[in-house]
C-alpha cells in the first residue's frame, strides 16, 4: 500500500510538473521558475526517458462518442520509440489518429505525454512499426505516422485517420460501428475512420489505391528492413555552414539542461556540424546551433517566420532578446534579421494570436533560422505584454496602424461584409465625409492625398458601390498597414497617408478555401500548393443587387436600375530556394450603376505586378517590384437621344520599384529607386446609341514620368533611443509641355523609451504630390478625373510634425497613447464656383491653389489581449483651406481660412470584441463625430421664372452630428482540424439605435417657403447575417 501511495504521488507530481512546465513556457516570458525540487523528482522518475517526456498533454474529447480516436484500440501497448536519434524501450504507446499524436506513458503513469512529432523517427507498438517518414527524409510523405505494412525499397504503408464528426441526424453508419463494440445508437458524435495507402516509388512516397495496395501486399516480393534501417540510422540532417544543425548523435547526457526553466540560461550541448541544412524551428525546447567556429563577438541571425498551418510569411512578428534588449520585427515578407552577441542566447518570437516561442540558440557565426509559429487557440487569458505593445515601444515609427484580418472580420459593417476600409475607419484620425462615401481622409488631408497600394499596385478608387464595400476581398488579405505620419522614405507621391494592403501567398501545405454568402454579395476563394515550391491563391466576389432591383414592381422608380460589381484576385508565388522568391499578382474589378435608364456609370480597376525578393547574407537583400495599373471611368447620359454621350477617362501607369537593404552595425539601411510612367486620358466624349449626333472629342493624353530615389536609416543608438531618418528625392517630368519639378522629401523620427512600457516619439516628414484628383464634389464621384502637375498646376507639397507618448499598463495589457500633429500643405487644389471640370482643356482656369492646414490631438486606449480586446479613441482636429492668391471679392471666404469638406473636429470611436468562448464572441462599434461642413442657402430669389437659392460661404455650416452603434455576434468554427468544412456565422445589427444620420441636405421651394430636408442612407437599424464556409 505504501508503494502504491508512493507511485501515485510520483505520478501526481510528474503530471503537475509537466503541466507547470507547459504553462511557464507558453505564457510567462520572464519565467524565473527554477523548479529545483520538481525538476529533481522528474529526473529521478523519468530517468533516461526525461528527454522523451518533454512534451504536451494529449488532446481531450469532452463529449461522448462512438468509435475512438486511436489508430487501432484504446489500449496502450508496450513498445519502443526512436526519439531524437535515441531509442527508448519499455514505453507504453498508442496513436491518436485524429490528431496523429503519438502517446507515450510510463508503465505506472496515468497521463500520457505527446512527444513532439518532429523529433520522433519511428515507434514500434507491439509488432507494428510506425514511421514518421517526413522526419527521416521523405519530404513527399504525408504528415504524421505511417504503418509499415511491408518493408523494402518499395515499402507499403497504411495511414489511419479518425475524423471527429457531429451531425444532428443521429447518424451512425457502418463505418464506425464495426470497430466500436460499445456502439450507442443515440449518439450523434463519432469518429469516422479513413484509411489511405502509400508506397515508395522513385524515392518519393506516393499514394496508391486500396486495390493496388492489396495487390502489392499479396505479391511475392520479399520483405526487407529498408525503411526500418533508415529510421534506425537516422541521426538528423547536416546543414550548410552558418545554419542550424541537428546532431542527435552528439547529444551528451539525458537530463534536462541546467536552468531549463530559466529563460536566461542556455543548454550545454556540443555540436560538430559538417554539412548543414536549414530546418524549421517549431520545437522550442531544443538548442539550435548556428554557424561554425567560435569567438565571434556578434553574430547576425536572419530567417523567415511563417505560419505553421499555411506556411504564409508573417509580417510584424516581434523578435527580441531580453538580455541585450535587442529588438526587431519581421518585414512584410516574414523576413527578419537580428544581431546578437556570439554564444548562448534566448530569442523570443511574439505575434498576436500565435504561441509565444522562445528558442535557445548558440550563435557561432552568421546563419539563418526559419521559424514556424502555431496558432494560440487557448489564449483567452491576457498575456503580460502583447506583441504589438512591445513593437510600439521599441520602434521609432509613429502614426502607423496595423489592422489584423481577425480584427477586421469582427468589426460590424453594413450588410455584414468584412470590410478593410470600414475597419480602417475605426482608427483615430481617419474620417470619411459621409456614409457610403468612396474614399477616406487622414488627418485633415483630402481623399486624393492617400496612396492606396494593393500588392504594390495603386488603387485609385478603393471602393465598390459608391463606398458601401471596399475594393479588397477580405478572404485574400494578409495584412493592412496605414501610415498616418512619419511615412517611410520608400513611399512617396501622396501628402497624407499610405494604406498598404497585401495579399496572402497561398497555403503551401494543402488546398483550402472559403465561400461567403451575404445580403448583397457572395464570394469564393481557393488557395493551395502547386508542387513543393509554388503556391497559388485566387478569389472572386460578385454582387447580386441587380437581380434584387429587377424584382421591384415595374412602376417603382428603381425598377430596371442596376448597381453591381465584381472583383477577382490571383496570386502565384514561387520559391526558387530559401533566398529567392518570385510572386505575381493580378486584380480585376468593375462597378456598374444605373438608377435610371438615362444615366449609367461604371468604373474598373485592372492591376498586375510581379515581385522578386532576394535574401542576402547578413540580413541584407533586395527586391524589385514592377507592374501596371489601369483605372477607367465611364459615364453614359442619354436623356436626350440626339445628344446622348459617353464620357470616358482613364489612368494608366507602369512602375518599377526597387529596394536594397542591409545592416551595418546598429544601422538598418534601405535605399532604392522608383520610376512611375503616367498616361492619363482626361476625357473622351463619344456618341451613345445609334441616334446620337455627338461628335467624338478627345482631350490630349496627360503623360509624365516620375522618378524618385531614396535612402533611409533606422539607427538603434541604444536600448532607449533610436532614430529613423530618410530622404527621398522626387521629380516629375511632363512629357506634354516638357515642364519638370524636383524636390526633396525629408523624413525624421526619433524614439526615447525610458521604460520598457513607456516611450516618447516625435517625427517630421515632408511630402510631394504630382497627381491630383479633380473633383468639385465632397466625395469621389463617377465624374471625377485626375490631373498631373504641369507648367500651370504646381505639385502639392506639405510637411507634418507629430509627437506622441505611449504607455502600456502592465498587468492589464492596455496601451495608452496620445499623439499630436500639425500639418501644412501648399498648392493643394480647390475649385472655383461653377467650375466645369469635365472635358475642359484649360482645367487650370477652374482651379484655385490653396494653403491647407490641419492639426489635432488623438487619444487612444487599446487592449489587444485577453477576452476583451479593442480600442477607444477620442480626437479633436481641424482642417482648413485658404486661397493662396488674391482674387479680390471673388475669393472664397473673402480670402480667409475656411473649413474643408472633411473637417469634423470631434470624433469618438470605440471598437471592441469580447470572446465569450473560443467560438462565440460579440463585437460592437461606436462612432461619433461632428457633422461635416456644408454650404446652405441663406435666402432665395426669382429669376427667369424659377426660384433659386442664394448660398452661404463655402462649408460654413454643418450637418447634424453623426452617431452610430453597431453590434454583432460572431460564431467561429469549432476547432476540429479534420473536419472538411468549417462554418462561420455572423449575425449583427448595423446602426443599432436607428439614428437618422444625415447623408446630405437639400432645400425645396414649397408654397409656404423654403423647407430643408436631409437624406439619411441607413435611417433604421439594419440587421444582417453572413455565412462563411471554410474548406
Amino acid at each position, binding site marked *: 500500500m505504501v508503494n502504491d501511495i508512493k507511485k501515485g504521488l510520483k505520478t501526481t507530481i510528474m503530471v503537475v510538473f509537466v503541466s507547470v512546465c507547459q504553462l511557464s513556457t507558453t505564457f510567462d516570458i520572464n519565467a524565473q521558475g527554477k523548479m529545483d525540487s520538481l525538476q529533481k523528482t522528474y529526473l529521478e522518475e523519468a530517468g533516461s526517458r526525461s528527454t522523451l517526456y518533454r512534451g504536451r498533454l494529449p488532446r481531450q474529447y469532452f463529449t461522448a462518442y462512438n468509435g475512438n480516436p486511436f489508430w487501432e484500440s484504446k489500449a496502450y501497448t508496450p513498445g519502443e520509440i526512436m526519439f531524437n536519434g535515441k531509442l527508448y524501450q519499455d514505453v507504453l504507446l498508442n496513436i491518436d489518429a485524429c490528431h496523429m499524436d503519438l502517446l507515450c506513458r510510463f508503465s505506472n503513469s496515468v497521463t500520457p505525454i505527446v512527444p513532439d512529432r518532429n523529433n520522433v523517427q519511428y515507434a514500434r507498438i507491439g509488432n507494428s512499426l510506425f514511421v514518421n517518414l517526413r522526419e527521416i527524409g521523405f519530404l513527399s510523405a504525408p504528415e504524421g505516422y505511417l504503418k509499415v505494412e511491408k518493408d523494402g525499397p518499395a515499402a507499403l504503408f497504411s495511414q489511419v485517420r479518425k475524423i471527429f464528426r457531429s451531425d444532428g441526424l443521429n447518424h451512425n453508419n457502418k463505418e464506425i460501428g464495426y470497430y466500436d463494440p460499445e456502439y450507442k445508437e443515440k449518439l450523434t458524435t463519432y469518429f469516422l475512420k479513413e484509411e489511405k495507402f502509400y508506397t515508395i516509388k522513385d524515392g518519393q512516397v506516393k499514394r496508391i489505391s486500396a486495390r493496388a495496395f492489396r495487390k502489392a501486399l499479396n505479391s511475392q516480393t520479399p520483405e526487407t528492413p529498408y525503411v526500418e534501417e533508415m529510421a534506425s540510422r537516422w541521426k538528423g540532417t547536416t546543414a550548410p555552414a552558418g545554419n542550424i544543425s541537428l546532431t542527435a548523435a552528439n547529444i551528451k547526457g539525458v537530463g534536462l539542461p541546467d536552468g531549463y526553466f530559466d529563460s536566461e540560461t542556455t543548454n550545454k550541448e556540443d555540436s560538430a556540424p559538417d554539412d548543414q541544412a536549414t530546418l524549421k524551428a517549431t520545437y522550442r525546447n531544443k538548442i539550435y546551433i548556428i554557424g561554425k567556429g567560435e569567438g565571434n563577438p556578434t553574430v547576425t541571425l536572419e530567417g523567415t517566420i511563417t505560419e505553421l498551418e499555411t506556411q504564409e510569411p508573417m509580417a510584424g512578428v516581434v523578435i527580441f532578446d531580453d538580455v541585450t534588449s535587442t529588438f526587431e520585427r519581421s518585414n512584410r515578407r516574414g523576413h527578419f534579421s537580428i544581431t546578437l552577441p556570439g554564444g548562448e542566447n534566448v530569442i523570443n518570437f511574439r505575434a498576436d494570436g500565435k504561441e509565444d516561442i522562445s528558442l535557445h540558440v548558440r550563435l557561432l557565426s552568421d546563419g539563418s533560422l526559419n521559424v514556424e509559429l502555431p496558432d494560440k487557440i487557448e489564449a483567452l487569458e491576457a498575456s503580460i505584454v502583447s506583441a504589438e505593445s512591445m513593437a510600439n515601444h521599441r520602434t521609432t515609427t509613429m502614426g502607423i496602424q496595423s489592422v489584423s484580418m481577425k480584427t477586421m472580420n469582427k468589426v460590424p459593417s453594413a450588410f455584414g461584409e468584412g470590410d478593410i476600409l470600414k475597419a480602417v475607419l475605426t482608427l483615430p484620425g481617419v474620417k470619411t465625409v459621409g456614409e457610403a462615401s468612396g474614399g477616406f481622409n487622414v488627418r485633415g488631408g483630402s481623399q486624393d492625398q492617400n496612396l492606396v497600394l494593393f500588392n504594390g499596385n495603386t488603387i485609385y478608387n478603393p471602393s465598390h458601390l*459608391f463606398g458601401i464595400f471596399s475594393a479588397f476581398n477580405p478572404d485574400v488579405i494578409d495584412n493592412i498597414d496605414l501610415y498616418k505620419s512619419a511615412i517611410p522614405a520608400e513611399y512617396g507621391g501622396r501628402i497624407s497617408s499610405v494604406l498598404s494592403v497585401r495579399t496572402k501567398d497561398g497555403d503551401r501545405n494543402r488546398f483550402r478555401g472559403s465561400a461567403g454568402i451575404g445580403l448583397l454579395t457572395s464570394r469564393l476563394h481557393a488557395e493551395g500548393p502547386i508542387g513543393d515550391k509554388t503556391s497559388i491563391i485566387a478569389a472572386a466576389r460578385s454582387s447580386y443587387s441587380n437581380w434584387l432591383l429587377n424584382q421591384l414592381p415595374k412602376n417603382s422608380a428603381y425598377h430596371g436600375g442596376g448597381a453591381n460589381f465584381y472583383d477577382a484576385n490571383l496570386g502565384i508565388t514561387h520559391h526558387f530556394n530559401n533566398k529567392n522568391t518570385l510572386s505575381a499578382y493580378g486584380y480585376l474589378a468593375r462597378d456598374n450603376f444605373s438608377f435610371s435608364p438615362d444615366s449609367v456609370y461604371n468604373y474598373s480597376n485592372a492591376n498586375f505586378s510581379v515581385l522578386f525578393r532576394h535574401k542576402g547574407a547578413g540580413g541584407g537583400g533586395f527586391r524589385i517590384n514592377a507592374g501596371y495599373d489601369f483605372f477607367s471611368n465611364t459615364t453614359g447620359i442619354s436623356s436626350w437621344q*440626339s445628344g446622348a454621350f459617353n464620357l470616358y477617362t482613364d489612368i494608366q501607369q507602369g512602375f518599377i520599384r526597387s529596394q536594397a537593404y542591409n545592416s551595418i552595425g546598429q544601422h538598418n539601411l534601405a535605399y532604392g529607386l522608383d520610376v512611375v510612367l503616367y498616361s492619363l486620358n482626361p476625357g473622351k466624349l463619344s456618341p451613345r446609341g445609334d441616334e446620337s449626333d455627338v461628335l467624338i472629342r478627345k482631350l490630349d493624353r496627360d503623360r509624365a514620368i516620375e522618378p524618385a530615389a531614396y535612402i533611409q536609416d533606422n539607427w538603434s543608438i541604444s536600448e532607449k533611443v533610436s532614430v529613423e531618418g530618410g530622404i527621398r528625392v522626387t521629380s516629375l517630368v511632363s512629357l506634354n509641355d516638357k515642364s519638370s519639378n524636383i524636390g526633396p522629401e525629408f523624413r525624421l523620427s526619433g524614439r526615447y523609451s525610458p521604460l520598457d512600457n513607456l516611450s516618447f516619439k516625435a517625427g517630421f516628414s515632408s511630402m510631394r504630390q504630382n497627381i491630383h484628383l479633380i473633383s468639385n464634389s465632397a466625395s469621389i464621384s463617377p465624374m471625377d478625373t485626375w490631373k498631373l502637375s504641369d507648367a500651370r498646376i504646381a505639385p502639392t507639397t506639405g510637411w507634418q510634425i507629430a509627437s506622441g507618448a505611449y504607455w502600456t499598463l502592465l498587468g492589464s495589457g492596455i496601451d495608452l497613447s496620445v499623439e499630436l500633429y500639425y500639418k501644412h500643405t501648399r498648392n493643394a487644389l480647390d475649385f472655383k464656383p461653377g467650375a466645369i471640370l469635365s472635358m475642359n482643356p484649360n482645367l487650370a482656369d477652374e482651379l484655385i491653389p490653396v494653403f491647407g492646414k490641419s492639426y489635432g490631438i488623438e487619444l487612444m486606449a487599446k487592449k489587444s489581449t485577453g477576452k476583451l480586446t479593442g480600442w477607444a479613441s477620442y480626437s479633436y482636429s481641424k482642417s482648413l483651406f485658404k486661397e493662396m492668391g488674391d482674387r479680390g471679392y471673388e475669393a472664397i471666404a473673402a480670402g480667409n481660412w475656411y473649413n474643408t469638406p472633411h473637417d469634423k473636429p470631434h470624433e469618438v470611436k470605440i471598437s471592441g470584441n469580447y470572446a465569450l468562448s473560443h467560438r462565440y464572441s460579440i463585437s460592437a462599434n461606436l462612432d461619433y463625430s461632428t457633422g461635416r461642413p456644408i454650404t446652405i442657402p441663406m435666402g432665395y*430669389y426669382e429669376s427667369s421664372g424659377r426660384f433659386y437659392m442664394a448660398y452661404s460661404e463655402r462649408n460654413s455650416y454643418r450637418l447634424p452630428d453623426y452617431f452610430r452603434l453597431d453590434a454583432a455576434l460572431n460564431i467561429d468554427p469549432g476547432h476540429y482540424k479534420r473536419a472538411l468544412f468549417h462554418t462561420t456565422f455572423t449575425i449583427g445589427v448595423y446602426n443599432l439605435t436607428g439614428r437618422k444620420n444625415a447623408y446630405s441636405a437639400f432645400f425645396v421651394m414649397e408654397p409656404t417657403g423654403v423647407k430643408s430636408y436631409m437624406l*439619411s442612407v441607413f435611417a433604421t437599424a439594419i440587421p444582417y447575417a453572413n455565412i462563411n464556409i471554410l474548406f
Partner: protein
Amino acid sequence: MKRITTYLLACLMLSACIYPLDIQSEDNLQDILVVDGTIIIGAESTITLSRMLPLNNDGKGAFKYLTSRIEASVTLENDGGLSITKDNFPYVFDTSTADPEKSYRLTVVCAGKTYRTSWIKPMPAPKITSVDFSADDTNVFVKLSLDGTQNGLGYASAQYDAIWKFHADYVRILDYIPEDNAIVGIEDPDYTFYECWMKTIGRQQTIIDYANTGGIAKDYPLLFFPRTSNRNHYNYSILVKVRNLTEQEYRYWKQLSDTEGQASTLFSPEPANASSNLVCESDPSVKVFGYVGVSRMEYYIASIGSEYLIYGQPPRLTVIEPEDYYSYYSLGYYPITVTTGGFGWGPKSCFNCVSAGGTLQRPSFDLPKDY
C-alpha cells in the same frame, strides 16, 4: 420569395429616408438686388428687379414682395450713342429696332448704388429647324430641333408660350333650388356647356448644350404633358423662343440648375452663388444676383396634331345625402349629374372652364412686330 426580396430591398433602399432638417442660418443676405431679363434685339425687352428673400420667410408675403415695385433707374445704352432710361416699373424697353451690330450694357441705380454690366455684343439666334410632337401611352412630348452651324455656337436658351382651347369636364344637367332644397333638371343643358381658352407664358428657360453635337440639336426634349391633360381637348399651339448664349451665360445658368435645391449632396457639385455679369461699381463688395444677356430671338409656332387628342377622364364626383344639399351648395358645389343612388356634386370648375382658369376670348401669342 417576394417577402424576402422586399425585406432585402428594404435594407438596401427603403432604409434611406428623407426627413426634415432643422438648420438655422445666421448670415443676413437680405436686400440683395436681383436683376433679371434679356435684351432682345428685334423685340421688346423687359428688365425685372427684385430683392432676395431670407430663407426663413414664411412665404406668405413672398410672392407679393417679389412682385412689388423696386424704385430704381434702369438705363440701356449701346456703344453707338443710344441711351434709354426708365425710372419707373415696369422697366420695358423697345428694342425692336435696336442695332444688332452694336454692343449694349445695362445700368441700374438703386438705393444709392450703381450696378452695371460690361459691354455685351448681341448673340445671333440659332435657326429653329422644327418643333415636333410625339406621344406614348402616357405623355405627349414636344421636341425642339436647332441648327446653329451658321453661327458656330453651341449654347442656347429656349422658352415657350402655349395657347390651347379646352372644354369643361362636365355638361351640367342638374340644378339645385336652395329655397326648395330640391334638385331639378336643366331644360337646356347646352347652355351649361363651356369652351374656353388658356394661355401660359413660359418664363422658365431650358438650357441646351449642342456644342457636342456640332451645333445641331435634334429633337431636344422641351416639355411633356400627360395625354389626359386638357391641352389635348381641341388643339394646342406652342410658340418657342430660342436665343443663343455665350459660354459665360451658359455656365451661369448651368451652375444654377446643377445645384438647384441640392445643397451638399456628396456627388453633386458644391453649391455656390453663380457669378453675375453685373457688378456694383460703387461698392464691389456688394453682391448682386442675376444675369443680363443680349441677343436676337428666333420664334417658331407649332400646333399639335389631332392624333394626340384624347378626352380626359372626369374627376370623381361626391355623392351626398339630400340633407346635405344646402350645405354643399353654400360651399360652392353644384349638382352636376345623376349617379347610382344619388346625385353627383362637384365644384364649379367641373362644368365652368372659366372657373378652371380659362378665358372665353381667344388669346394670341406676343410676337415681335416684324414676325
